[in-house]
């Protein structure tokens, strides 16, 4: 069986909601049935067959070719299989994803991994603002699972993040881990202004001191934290630069945001 492949015929003029196209929903469907699925596009509805060429038959490993930034909600609430995307993805990639793996060979739009519960999201490119953050009106952002970004992440990464791990190999924008509730964000590059603003709990692990640390973070000194050994060991099986980190390094610990309970931590490798 070959992977079920959807190849975008041409870039749509308006944004398209691709949330129905998950391995869960497509499993067992024929090409005709898949082509007949309706997708919301702006204020109208399009059938999958109008947007995509459909080939292959294994819905558990779905491939989307020629993808573009107007395809929103790819992999929403998926709970089985994998999705591989060639090209960019729109907003809400892997929103509320329950299980499985999504690999994006391109850039992701805003709110990628928001509400994600479990599974793995790999972004071989950059992620826009609000990666793993809560969408307006929701209390929590990412709720579990793991996100790996090989490029950079935008502003407000991990805003209201509740659980899980976000590993950014590049840089992250302003207010990374803002209002973070729990979980781990690790950045190998640099962090811009306002890192940890309003942070309640959780960990922001940085390779270098952020451009500016909020005044509401207090220096707790340099330490070897035993749990980091376990955390880094858990990354060793991953295909990421994080797998190359030394497990016995010490970190400088800043705790805050003291204006918001103050038990979050920004750790900076020594």
């Amino acid at each position, binding site marked *: 069986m070959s992977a079920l492949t959807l190849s975008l015929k041409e870039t749509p003029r308006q944004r398209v909601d691709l949330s129905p196209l998950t391995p869960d929903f497509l499993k067992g469907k024929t090409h005709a049935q898949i082509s007949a699925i309706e997708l919301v596009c702006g204020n109208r509805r399009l059938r999958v067959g109008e947007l995509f060429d459909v080939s292959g038959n294994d819905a558990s490993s779905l491939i989307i070719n020629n993808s573009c930034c107007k395809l929103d909600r790819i992999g929403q609430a998926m709970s089985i299989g994998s999705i591989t995307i060639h090209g960019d993805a729109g907003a809400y990639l892997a929103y509320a994803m329950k299980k499985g793996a999504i690999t994006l060979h391109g850039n992701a739009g805003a709110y990628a991994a928001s509400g994600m519960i479990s599974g793995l999201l790999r972004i071989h490119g950059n992620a826009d603002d609000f990666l793993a953050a809560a969408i307006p009106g929701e209390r929590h952002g990412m709720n579990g699972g793991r996100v790996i970004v090989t490029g950079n992440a935008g502003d407000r990464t991990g805003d209201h993040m509740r*659980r899980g791990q976000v590993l950014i190999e590049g840089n992250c924008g302003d207010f990374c881990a803002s209002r973070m509730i729990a979980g781990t964000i690790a950045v190998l590059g640099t962090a811009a202004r306002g890192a940890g603003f309003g942070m309640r709990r959780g960990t922001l692990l940085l390779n270098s001191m952020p451009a500016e640390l909020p005044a509401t973070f207090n220096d707790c000194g340099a330490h*070897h*934290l035993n*749990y980091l050994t*376990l955390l880094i*060991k858990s990354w060793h099986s991953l295909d990421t630069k994080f797998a190359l980190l030394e497990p016995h390094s010490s970190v400088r610990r800043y705790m805050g945001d003291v204006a918001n309970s103050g038990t979050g931590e920004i750790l900076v490798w020594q």
Partner: protein
Amino acid sequence: MVINGVTIDDTFAEAFGMKATRVVITAYNLKWAYHAANAATGFATSVIACGCEAGIERKLEPEDTPDGRPGAAILLFAVSGKELAKQLERRIGQCVLTSPTSAAFAGISEGERLPLGKNLRYFGDGFQSSKLIGGKRLWRVPVMDGEFLCEETTGMVKAVGGGNFLILAESQSQALAAGEAAIEAMRKVPNVIMPFPGGVVRSGSKVGSKYKTLMASTNDAFCPTIRGITRSELSEEVHAVLEIVIDGLTEADVRSAMQAGIAAVCGLGVKNGIRRVTAGNYGGKLGQFNFQLRQIMS
């Protein structure tokens, strides 16, 4: 059955069903891991008065531990899950949490979960935090030398307690040498502990006593100094008896340990004063498990 001049009695050891758990204790170096492990398994020779039976199962190299530091695996056995949970919390809280540089991890992943760091985290007084790594929740409790890292729970499994055999020797020193040889061999067997001091017990007991308040009393049939006034089990040449008690995670583990121990004792043979190996039982009516000595050694 006679092995190297040592008579193996046609009898059996009677053992009981217990509940058990394993905890992996690590520290900055092996010395401090053993300080914590020794303390946590101290005063845990018998469930009769200690609440649980516990011991160090084995030394762990850094590559065998979750945090890459040297450590020790300890096993705890109790008569019920409730008692085991109580003993675990007390012992980890008082002996491991308090020990410099220590950390505690689950040593058994399956079975019913017992709280490990789940309640101890409150020592952190609100400054504690947790991390979910590889599906396991770890608690980080701030302490004066850094952080006490402790997995939230550990697994509890059904186990076997009270496997035993007795070494009958011509002298006390020969009995002790045989006991030491047996323990050295048995320590190589995984999933078992010998909970008494040095693994060897001299005060074997029988059920009941002439004193109504006592449930157990000295096993007079095996006490050499009163052989003339009691129904003694000892022959003229025997002047000292030592017992080895074994707790294991499974019946097969206890059997393997008994086999290794008795073989080591028989290896010394009659030329080193070892005369007989026998076992303690209650007629086979109380315990769930019977370990026939001759079957084990055949």
